């Protein structure tokens, strides 16, 4: 029996994906762990690895074709099997098509069938083509929708009218605040920049859905604290001087990550995930670090952050940023987060709050480290202060839990040496 390699869930939230590039071709020998394709998920392009060994007999999905998780992608001939024979017996039809035919075939109940037809052969349909009805295409053309981006609900993934209309509705509701485009406005005397309708990327669509979901299901509270970091800034400077020859430069954010990881270890109530029914206090401390990209936002995860030194936090974070920018994050680098940090300090933001990254129960919004007047005893002095805001899911985390976590965090950052304890 040939092995059929299926689309894997390489991102935790992915339900469908498409092949960006095949890394193998028919006839190639594939070993376990080999990358067989780059897959575009809802978040990023990820390599898809094979869990099996064999010779590639047939690619069942074309580049760009969106398929569901679990959908067959390619056939591997195992030892002793002839790849060509497998490809021939599998026919040319992609499984999605075969499924559609299976649906049509039994419905000959009343549907015409004729002995005047030649013996039935499976109709070959090329895998890369978007199957759609004429009406769906007509509407898509009129509305300037790329029909390839519309998910088809018909047999074999055929895009039908409803699919295009649902797609359009989703688009218009996303941009409903934009005023309607005037079509026949008289030519203005001055240069007027017209409205631009922006089609959301897959990533942005996912973000939109997840943010809405978080605000819908999770009653969140926000707890803010100021942290004086003069000591931290001084330590950072000394450490960076000694790390200069290694070309490593610690950021204030790295200290925050370190301190957050330690604080999470001490406050398991915040290092948790909640799916609406089950609260799981997570054994690992995996800190997600939000990274802004031109096309959206992504949260790679620094695994086991509580056990990492500042140097490893710096290099680990740097590697994650780099991979995120190049759209090369692996599933392992994106999954398993137990808490998230969002830092806008580099933009000079004083404070803000973040929306939960469900199913995590907490996210920390970090503002800029800036010089502010500080009351010391009965005097006003100048100190370096940073404001952080913790958002927690109040279904499972109380305000007091949040405050205690912040007290710990504040202590660690105001006296960094305590992190050694």
């Amino acid at each position, binding site marked *: 029996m040939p092995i059929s390699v299926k689309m894997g869930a390489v991102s935790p939230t992915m339900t469908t994906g498409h092949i960006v590039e095949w890394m193998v071709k028919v006839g190639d020998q594939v070993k376990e762990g080999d990358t067989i394709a780059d897959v575009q998920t809802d978040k990023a392009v990820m390599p898809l690895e094979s869990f099996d060994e064999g010779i590639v007999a047939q690619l069942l999905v074309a580049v760009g074709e969106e398929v569901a998780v679990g959908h067959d992608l390619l056939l591997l001939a195992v030892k002793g099997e002839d790849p060509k024979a497998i490809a021939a017996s599998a026919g040319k039809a992609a499984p999605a098509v075969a499924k559609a035919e299976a649906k049509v075939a039994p419905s000959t109940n*009343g549907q*015409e069938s004729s002995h*005047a037809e030649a013996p039935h052969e499976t109709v070959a349909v090329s895998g890369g083509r978007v199957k759609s009805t004429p009406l769906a*295409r007509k509407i898509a053309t009129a509305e300037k929708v790329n029909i390839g981006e519309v998910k088809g609900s018909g047999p074999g993934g055929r895009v039908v009218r409803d699919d295009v209309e649902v797609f359009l509705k989703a688009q218009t509701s996303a941009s409903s605040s934009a005023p309607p485009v005037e079509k026949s406005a008289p030519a203005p005397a001055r240069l007027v920049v017209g409205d631009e309708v922006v089609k959301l990327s897959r990533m942005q669509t996912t973000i939109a859905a997840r943010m809405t979901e978080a605000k819908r299901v999770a009653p969140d509270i926000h707890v803010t604290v100021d942290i004086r970091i003069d000591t931290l800034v001084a330590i950072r400077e000394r450490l960076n001087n000694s790390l200069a020859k290694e070309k490593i430069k610690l950021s204030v954010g790295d200290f925050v990550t370190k301190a957050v990881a330690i604080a999470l270890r001490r406050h398991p109530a915040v290092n948790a995930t909640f799916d609406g029914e089950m609260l799981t206090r997570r054994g690992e401390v995996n800190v997600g670090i939000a990274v802004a990209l031109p096309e959206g936002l992504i949260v790679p995860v620094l695994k086991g952050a509580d056990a990492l030194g500042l140097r490893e936090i710096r290099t680990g974070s740097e590697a994650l940023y780099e991979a995120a920018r190049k759209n090369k994050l692996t599933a392992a680098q994106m999954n398993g987060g137990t808490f998230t940090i969002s830092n806008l300090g580099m933009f000079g933001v004083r404070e803000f709050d973040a929306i939960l990254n469900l199913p995590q129960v907490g996210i920390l919004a970090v503002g800029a480290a800036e010089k502010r007047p500080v009351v010391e005893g009965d005097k006003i002095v100048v100190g370096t202060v940073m404001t952080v805001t913790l958002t927690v899911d109040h279904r499972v985390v109380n305000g007091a839990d949040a405050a205690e976590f912040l007290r710990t965090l504040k202590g660690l950052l105001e006296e960094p040496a305590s992190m050694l304890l």
Partner: protein
Amino acid sequence: MAVIQYREALRQAMVEEMERDDRVFLMGEEVAEYNGAYKVSQGMLDQFGPRRIIDTPISENGFCGIGIGAAMVGLRPIVEFMTFSFSYVAFDQLVNNAANMRYMSGGQFSVPIVFRGNSGVGGSLGATHSHRPEAFYAHVPGLTVLMPSTPADAKGMLKAAIRSDDPIIFIEHENLLGDKGEVSDDRDFLVPIGKASIVRPGRDVTLITYSRMLKITLAAAEKLAEEGIDAEVIDLRSIRPLDIDTLVTSVSKTHRAVIIEEDWPYCGIGAGISDRIMQKAFDELDAPIRRVTAKDVPVPYSRVLEAAMLPDVGKVVAQVHDVLYR
């Protein structure tokens, strides 16, 4: 208006047209002395006498030829086939002579003739007496093919056929002869040739049918209405010429069509209609056009098998679900 049977409506049409025009006459097997094998011409011999109500031998090829000759020299014959299954004996007369005479004679001869009789799967009549001949004749340029499904249309369409100056294949249905319905008394009540009828307006799917299958289709539409599916039912009435405009307008509204016919699938009426719709309204379709036809087999004698062979409400509903992706 009076409620009368389909067969009575046919008779009224012939009687009124014979009273109106002395050139009209009826001939066929058993039309006179026996008052018609299906009693369509009952009483007509008494009213019009043997000069105009003429019994023929069992010789379709012969009496069809006589009819065509009579039409060419100025009379307006109605030729009755006991059933249209027997018209195949006269296929050459209908397809070669009647259809082509105007063309072959350079317009010197027209053939104002009506070939009429019942057809269809009548009930245990067996493979050779259960033919649905519409696709054969609708294939031919020069012939007009009409198939009424109600008593009113039976009268209005037959009167229009008799007044036509060209050969008409007028196909009734054996199982409709006893159906009753309101029929106009107006002696000039004509149903225009080439005009389909929207029997039931709807917005979700277009069901296209004709003749007896209209009843199945309307029953299916009722069933679909229970599920909230609003089907538009169109009775073609005229098989050739086809009222494509009405079909395109409907499909442009519903974006899906199912064609229901009692005939076989391959090269059937639905195949031709489906092609025409796709030529004219391809961009309006949101699903492939589906057809519900008789099975592609000789008509069985067994009633059970015969029923299994024919379209029924369940088969129509299934195909409607299919085009609606339900």
